[in-house]
């Protein structure tokens, strides 16, 4: 079964939005920081002999700015593609993601449950399920479990609410649903209350 034109369009819109966000973050982040670094270093160079103390301060500023740029790029690079996914596969990559999320995440991914050809698909769908769907300030903790079903994989993402939102926990499902549909799967919202948000991603086997 091929992906339908509608699925493909949804995926492209998602990808293009993602590219735009990425470009903006690079532009406002590391690019601007590198400009500031160049300016500070050039100014330091110009006043090196006459005003050594000020030059030294500018060099220090440049070093601090370079450190911030490095940290920003480090974060961005791991979002774009965590190297641990290429070297160790989806399980270790999800455990690594758990160390970086703004809320606790318990990962239950038995070894070999995800076929290697689905490693990347599953990782990025899990990533978007965790990042895009819930409202992070409402989440107290979360759990991600992947099981093999007769007809592919079921990715179970559940969020426990901290009760600070008004009404049921918010869920932004559009972009995730499009991504999952592009893989011929579907998203099922199984619980949505002020304390719980549970979804299951049904992923068919790879072609």
């Amino acid at each position, binding site marked *: 079964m091929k992906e339908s034109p509608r699925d493909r369009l949804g995926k492209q819109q998602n990808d293009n939005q993602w590219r735009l966000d990425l470009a903006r973050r690079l532009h406002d982040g590391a690019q601007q920081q590198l400009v500031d670094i160049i300016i500070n270093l050039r100014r330091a160079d110009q006043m090196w002999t006459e005003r050594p103390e000020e030059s030294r301060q500018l060099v220090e500023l440049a070093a601090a700015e370079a450190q911030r740029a490095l940290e920003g790029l480090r974060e961005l690079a791991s979002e774009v593609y965590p190297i641990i996914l290429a070297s160790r596969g989806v399980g270790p990559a999800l455990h690594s993601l758990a*160390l970086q999320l703004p809320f606790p995440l318990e990962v239950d991914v038995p070894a070999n449950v995800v076929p290697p050809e689905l490693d990347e698909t599953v990782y990025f769908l899990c990533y978007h399920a965790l990042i895009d769907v819930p409202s992070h300030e409402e989440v107290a903790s979360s759990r991600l479990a992947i099981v093999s079903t007769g007809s592919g994989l079921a990715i179970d993402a559940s969020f426990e609410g901290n009760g600070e939102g008004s009404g049921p926990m918010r869920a932004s499902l559009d972009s995730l649903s499009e991504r999952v549909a592009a893989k011929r799967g579907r998203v099922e919202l199984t619980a949505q209350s002020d304390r719980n948000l549970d979804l299951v991603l049904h992923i068919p086997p790879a072609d």
Partner: protein
Amino acid sequence: MSRVSGIRVVVGEDQPIFRDGLVHILREEGFEVLGAWGNASELLAQLLALAPDVVISDIQMPPGRTDDGLKAVLEARRSHPEIGVLMLSQYLDASYAIELVADNARGVGYLLKEKVAEIAVLVDAVNRVASGGTALDPDVVEALVRRPRKPGPFDSLTRRERSVLELIAQGLSNASIAQKLEITTGAVERHVAHIYAKLGLRDGRGDHRRVLAVLEYLKQ
């Protein structure tokens, strides 16, 4: 800082400017640099041939450009467990550091690449690794300690106990922790006992065993 350390070092790094800078710093600080290689397969062959006291290597290296450097080093350690390992990395996330310590915590270190410019930090890490100790990057450990976790025993640690826990995870001995926090070794021992009791950790003998126990707890 001794300038005649006699510690024999091999470097694995594929970026030429960084590699030359690192070799220069190490020689300036009195380490004997046996050579530097920019490809993980060559690095592995050299480690087996030279059996240095310490290898300082980037995790990500050719030919595969994923974690080939780490794999080469772990492979070399299987036949030469006495080689100390200091991995340099761009990853703040502790996964690789934990893997390294879990493989064999004796004589292992993990530093973010930019720490090479903080010469005292680099020299301290090389020395600790060479003498069988553990040296994990303070920023990597801090990120691990500060990450959000479910309510639990961790919340009952006092601020001082948290600082002690961080220093244990970095691989410091009780004596070094005492020096750093300007308290007595006896006081550190009491903090350690409280931390172990509160978190339900087993009393791991040996500094490197307790590093692993603490890291395993922190990543839960």
